[in-house]
């Protein structure tokens, strides 16, 4: 793994808001054109982010699936104890970014990375990092619910089981706590020994959330956790996010702008593997620096 030096910014096209504020016009955005053309540009990172304690820091992080590049030298700080939303059109690399945080992409053949990613100041991609230990500190919920073919109870306590926890009481308490947090306790408390595959899709997703938080992770990575949920369950999950954001740092990928607005403190907008704009959520949604961002968040493209 070689760390490449930051590329010299060839063409700076960070445009001021007033210059391109032509909301009613068909999409003609210089930044996105530049990205499509593969040119380098500097993302608009708001000043409100500086001065915050970053739990995760990306330094020119790039990722290649074999010959195709999925992430293009992304640099961003994820502030501690806040909810950071990642938005962007489908296929722009949001999941990839999230999966690189807990190094799940290592499992994909032919993945190569450049640049670095630091968790609490320590490189995640260092050769001597204990990946298992790293993943234990990060909880992950996937885009599609993936409960294991076991009982509900076993599903929730899986992270504790693999840690070697055997005391029945501890496991039961942890299970109940996690299920309550994930707002699913009332629905499953009578059938903890039933197979998790019998749950509905939404219940399965909340079960996966319970599984992700049962071991008290430092950072919770949520990849569209609500895509399979009805509005009520979504609301519950959002409440849950709100609640756990007091304790953990949360990174959430979502296609739902309202959701991003409701739950997150900071929002990053990505396009074609690049970070476009990153700032406090109210600013991104109300006063974005780039017209492209505004167009995206108001639903006029993407």
């Amino acid at each position, binding site marked *: 793994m070689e760390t490449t030096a930051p590329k010299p910014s060839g063409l700076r096209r960070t445009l001021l808001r007033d210059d391109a504020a032509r909301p009613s016009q068909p999409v003609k955005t210089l930044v996105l054109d530049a990205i499509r053309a593969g040119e380098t540009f500097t993302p608009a990172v708001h000043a409100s982010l500086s001065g915050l304690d970053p739990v995760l820091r990306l330094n020119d992080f790039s990722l290649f699936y074999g010959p195709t590049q999925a992430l293009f030298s992304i640099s961003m700080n994820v502030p501690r104890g806040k909810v950071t939303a990642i938005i962007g059109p489908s296929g722009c690399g949001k999941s990839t970014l999230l999966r690189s945080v807990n190094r799940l992409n290592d499992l994909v053949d032919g993945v190569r990375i450049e640049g670095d990613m630091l968790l609490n100041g320590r490189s995640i991609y260092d050769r*001597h990092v204990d990946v298992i*230990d790293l993943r234990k500190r990060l909880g992950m919920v996937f885009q599609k619910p993936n409960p294991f*073919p076991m009982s509900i109870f076993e599903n929730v306590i*899986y*992270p504790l089981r693999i840690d070697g926890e055997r005391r029945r009481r501890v496991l039961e308490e942890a299970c109940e706590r996690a299920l309550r947090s994930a707002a699913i306790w009332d629905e499953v408390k009578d059938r903890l020994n039933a197979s998790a595959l*019998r749950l509905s899709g939404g219940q399965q997703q909340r079960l996966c959330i319970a*599984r*992700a938080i049962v071991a008290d992770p430092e950072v919770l990575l949520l990849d569209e956790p609500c895509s399979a949920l009805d509005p009520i369950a979504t609301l519950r999950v959002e409440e849950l996010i709100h609640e756990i954001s007091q304790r953990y740092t949360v990174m959430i990928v979502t296609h739902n702008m309202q959701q991003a607005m409701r739950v997150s403190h900071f929002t990053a907008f990505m396009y074609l593997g690049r970070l476009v704009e990153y700032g406090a959520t109210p600013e991104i949604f109300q006063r974005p620096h780039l017209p492209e961002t505004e167009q995206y968040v108001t639903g006029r493209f993407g």
Partner: protein
Amino acid sequence: MWLMGAALALCVILIVGLVSLIAWQGIRAFWPRPIDLVTLRADHVLELRGERFFGIAVRDEPYEPLPRELERIEALGNARTLDLTAFHTDGRPLRRLYLVGNRDLGQESSLWVPLYELSLATARPRSALLVDRRDWGPWLGEAHALVLDEYLSHDVQLFDDPQSVETPFGPGSAHRFEGRNPQGEPIIVQRTTIDFEPDQASRILPPLIADAHRRQAEIRRIERESRFPIDRRLNRLDLRLRQAELDLQRAQNGRTRGLALPLWAGLLVSIVGCAWLIKRTLKLPVERRRGFLPQMTIRGAVLLAVLAAVVAVIEHPWAGPRITATSLEALRASVEEESRDLRMEAEQIDRLLMDLRHADQRFRAVILDPRTGAQAPQTTSDPREPLVLSQIVRLAAPNELSFAGKLRLYASRIAEFVAGEPRNANQEGGVFPVIIGTVTLTLLLTVAVVPLGVIAAIYLREYARQGLLTSAVRIGVNNLAGVPSIVYGVFGLGFFCYTLGRWVDAGPTDPLPRTEWWMLVVGVLLVIALAMGLGLLARASTRSSARTLGLFAGLCWITAVCIVIGIIATTPYFHGFFEAKAANNISTFRARGILWASLTLALLTLPVVIVATEEAIAAVPRSLREGSYGCGAGKWQTIRRIVLPGAMPGILTGAILAVSRGAGEVAPLMLVGAAKVAPQLPISGEFPFIHAERSFMHLGFHIFDLGFQSKDPVAARPLIWATTLLLILIVLALNMAAILLRARLRTRQSGF
């Protein structure tokens, strides 16, 4: 479309037809069939000495008559004595296959008779007996008399004429003649013959036969419980002495001693520990290597100490018992004394057994063949001595049996078939040892092939770096499935029986000198270290050089494995588990046996398990693995908790396929272990319980043997059908068990 339907229908019809044929014939095989008193025309032209004989009709079929027979048919037709039912509708004459038994008379046990030669008066006398004998096959005849012998001391008077005497079985006539008892002393035998009406036989004889069976059982019990253990103890004593002699020889020639098991364990542990330490050190980050150094030194020192201790014990003669010429003499004396006592005891028991056998021969029956008037003999060499009752396994008069009686006879035959020993060159009796052999073989095969295949598949799919080497292995494995099974048999015989078996029996053929062997051990450690280092380097380096480095690491590993095999094959510290036996030219594992047979079959069926397991593993959804890794599970934890349970139904399918194939395989077994007659069962209640070195009987081989190697296929036919049915049933039962297991697993997988 309809072609496919037709093909499917054809397949189904063929399979159903085959199975139902086997089932019908197998079920029918033991049903008692009536005995005909076959009466031929007075002027028949068959090559028979008489014209009346007992026979059991097997089947009729039309045939092409010879010109001579055509003339005969014409002559009979002219005389208007031709029976039209003796001809097939197409005009060809019919012939009937009769089972006639009585092979001691020098005749075939079955006979084709043209139906036109049958006299119209063919009867089924109630007195006709079917006598199943221990040897020489069935005897068809009529019982006329019971013979009771009494052994008198040699100074009683001989009778000049037969005298009439009263016996518990009615009046009889007695005569006396000179004979000898088992000790060879002269005695007088008083033989009383009690005549009875032939149709009384099935009333008088069975209780006496049951008594005779009890006497035989007693004899066998004494043999089993008292006589054979003495032989075994004698044998052990002999081997102990031989071993001591060999040890002494070795000590005198300055050669190394064999190592005890704990020493081997110590050696192994220290070698593996060293390898592990090397790996740990190489894997450590550079900056932490220094901190780890003291810990590593301590562990290394401990390991080295263990190694040194082991080497010291091995290389220095002061440890362990040493044998000297004087201690050998003492041992020899004590062994001789002990075996003398044992031999005396054995002689006593032998005498007792001989007396019992002699006494058993006092009860005999006169059963006459209607054609020749000859009696069923005790032995073919002396036709004057009538059949001893204990030689009769079962006596039946099928013509007078009611339906219930036939059912009882049927049940008793089936019971003998399933639970009895084979007799009369396997053509009659039971297949119990064959069943046991087959089931044991199948179980051993399963135990060997499933773990091996699953481990190999897990390694190939989950751990091995997918590259040239793994594809080569995969292609090789797939091709193994296409190799003819007889080739596996040859390989098994050559490698397992003769090479590996020899090593197990007597140790390496030409062991290396000590120093060279130790150099090999050190060498292999170095190669392993090199391989690990290269592997780690490969992981850390860029793409292009990683591949070559990985290749070199793989080559190093292969070399290491080869050297390890070499180390095992040439160790001077191992002289075989059965050294003394081998020195007496008795092979234990260097022979065809059930262990080697099951390993050969395991090799044969390995590809099926590997391929099925790989597919099952690959079918476990990626999202589940990622979920597990995302929870912080390691590779092995993920495999054990997510992948293997998910793949279990597929693995079981593979195992079922493999084991069914292995259970039905015959060709390799003929080379590596299946025997026509195995003297002992491969499992027993004695210590190792599974006697892996013994040869065994196998249903598939048994069918082949009965069908194609038997001298008398007609007589053996019912048994062939029944055995085939049994084999199918056993395979079916095994499959059903596995399928049920799989179904249960499936439901557990998809919600319970």
